[in-house]
């Protein structure tokens, strides 16, 4: 069992496919080459969609966005959830949502400032995007506890960053999960930064994975740019959680190639050399090398993949941009189940103000 074999307290971490696409055969998981190819294709679309979002924001066509560039393999972990499982995302999970089947156009629309873009995610068992750092682990524990109490075999997989682990709510969630043995899988994408704060000043703990020991369950550190390691760790963690063997923590070591969000300039706090040093560990490069070694990838084919990706992404942009803008009143809705008199008063005031000032919605 991987979680027992790779002890974070001993500095051990799981890697199956190295940066050159070489596979440690002894650890090779049951992932067919066809499936790997499919994952590669989806991750390529993810990367293009991600870059497109950044460009849209730069052109003033999107409000803000948190890129996943460099973290595609970790994000792809969402592909290893079952239909009945829950995905609990942070703001940096556009790639995970995409893998889960949330429409790209919906994701774009959300970041364009229209929350209706993600209105259907409940059907996919995805919780709303959480921006309050470190708070969503609590939600995941609550959801998975409910599943357990109802006797439904369903796991909640929650995503958060290295910075989030310093929040008290992370501790409370982990502790609760340990005590009540909830079917929760905690996925920490350690991308080495919390905005400008590097991992080494985030915690003095050698790994984030070892923090699981403090709560009486198992944690593992893996190379999060290695899709095989991601798959293998996810498979074990999900099945352990599902079968009541306890919650699990997976620390996925990765690196954020891009800015924290569109409002961030990483050159202010990290040197170009560090970024360059990490570039060869790109999660897509190793997959390409692997597939090419298996005769399943060629440059011509790459063009085809990219053409198809471009078409898919452009279509999503078009759908998102053609959606009618949200009503100004929407900001007051969707928070409380019932109408709240205090909010109603504010809404009326705003509408009156809008009518006075030529009545138009301040939308472009």
């Amino acid at each position, binding site marked *: 069992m991987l979680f027992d074999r790779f002890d974070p307290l001993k500095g051990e971490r799981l890697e199956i496919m190295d940066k050159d696409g070489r596979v440690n055969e002894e650890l090779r998981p049951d992932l067919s080459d066809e499936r790997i190819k499919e994952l590669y294709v989806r991750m390529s679309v993810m990367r293009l969609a991600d870059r497109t979002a950044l460009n849209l924001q730069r052109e003033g066509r999107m409000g803000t966005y948190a890129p996943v560039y460099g973290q595609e393999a970790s994000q792809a972990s969402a592909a290893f959830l079952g239909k009945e499982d829950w995905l609990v995302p942070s703001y940096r999970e556009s790639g995970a949502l995409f893998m889960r089947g949330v429409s790209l156009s919906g994701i774009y629309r959300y970041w364009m400032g229209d929350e209706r873009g993600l209105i259907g995610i409940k059907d996919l068992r995805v919780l709303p995007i959480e921006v309050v750092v470190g708070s969503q682990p609590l939600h995941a524990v609550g959801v998975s506890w409910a599943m357990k109490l109802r006797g439904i075999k369903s796991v909640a997989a929650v995503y958060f960053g290295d910075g989030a682990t310093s929040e*008290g709510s992370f*501790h409370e969630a982990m502790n609760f999960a340990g*005590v009540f043995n909830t079917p929760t899988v905690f996925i920490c994408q350690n991308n080495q930064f919390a905005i400008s704060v590097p991992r080494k000043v985030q915690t003095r703990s050698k790994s984030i994975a070892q923090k699981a020991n403090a709560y009486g369950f198992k944690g593992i550190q893996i190379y999060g740019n290695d899709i095989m390691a991601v798959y293998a760790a996810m498979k074990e963690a999900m099945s352990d959680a599902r079968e009541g063997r306890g919650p699990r923590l997976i620390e996925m070591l990765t690196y954020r190639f891009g800015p924290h969000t569109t409002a961030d300039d990483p050159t202010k706090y990290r040197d170009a050399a560090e970024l360059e040093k990490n570039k060869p560990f790109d999660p897509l490069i190793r997959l390409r090398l692997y597939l090419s070694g298996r005769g399943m990838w060629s440059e011509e084919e790459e063009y085809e993949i990219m053409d198809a990706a471009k078409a898919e992404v452009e279509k999503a942009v078009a759908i998102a941009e053609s959606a009618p803008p949200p009503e100004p009143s929407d900001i007051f809705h969707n928070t409380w189940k019932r109408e709240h008199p205090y909010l109603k008063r504010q809404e009326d005031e705003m509408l009156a103000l809008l009518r006075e000032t030529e009545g138009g919605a301040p939308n472009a």
Partner: protein
Amino acid sequence: MGEGWERVMDQDTELYYYLRLVREFEDRVSKLHHQGRIPGGVYSGLGQEAVVVGAVYRLKPEDFIFPLHRDLGAFLVKGVDPNLLMAQIMGKKTGFSGGRDSFLHAGVLDKGVIGSTSMLASSLPVACGAALKFKIKKEPRVAVAFFGEGASSRGDFHEAANFAGIHKLPVIFVCENNFYAFSTPQSMQMAVEDVADRAAGYGFHGHVCSGNDLFAVMRAMEHAVNQARRGDGPELIECKTYRYSGHSEHDMASYRTKEELIEWESRDPIQRYEFFLEKKGYDAAKIIAETGGKVKAVVDEAVKFAESSPEPEGPEAMTEIYATPV
């Protein structure tokens, strides 16, 4: 640490004096509360005396301690005047907070005792703040923060421990694990056996000791305090102990068995210390009797002082809350 005549006693008898003083004081506070002579809640630390004595005894006057609701003994060992402490607990004008509240919310700054709030574990980040100041100013002082195993489930604990680890702060986290948080047993509080295990998640050491063995607590503290003063960072010391009374005076503690209580009473920290005195060849019976008389006199005097102190008039409740009055 006490001043005056206690100082001239040798250490073995002085330690015994503090153990007994804390117990006598705790015991009296409980009795007075039952008689309706103490307003508000009382959270007895009976049974946990060795933890507060062992953790505070060797500290220097300039060190800071952050006691919680069950740690009135820490006040006494840090040198707080028993008269004033009793007045505080009785809500008198002569108490530290001038009668604004009772019990242990108020601190005694000139003795290095920082008061707590009712929010469990909220003083741990404050202890880190004090320790950060010591570090920045290069002062060889330490901050000692107390908390129960229940409080260790709070996010505040996590944020404090993590911060202390990163910045290698001269802070010592003393966990009094008495196995219950109100009625919640430890097994429903955490899925690990030792709170000390949590330290590994913050990059420093966690140490487990018997909180009923005064010398075990003192040894652990000595190591941790020296390390912190050297600038080598924090430590978590978990002291396994047991409270004899309920969570507070109104709690009958029906969630635990009589057998369990008896078992722990057989490990009483004070009796254990008395065995030590005997074994070391002291005239234990004499020390026990003399010390008993001394602590009774001190506590009698404290009660007399407090009861004869004036009540607050009322309007001062509005003052000295904010630095700048609102």
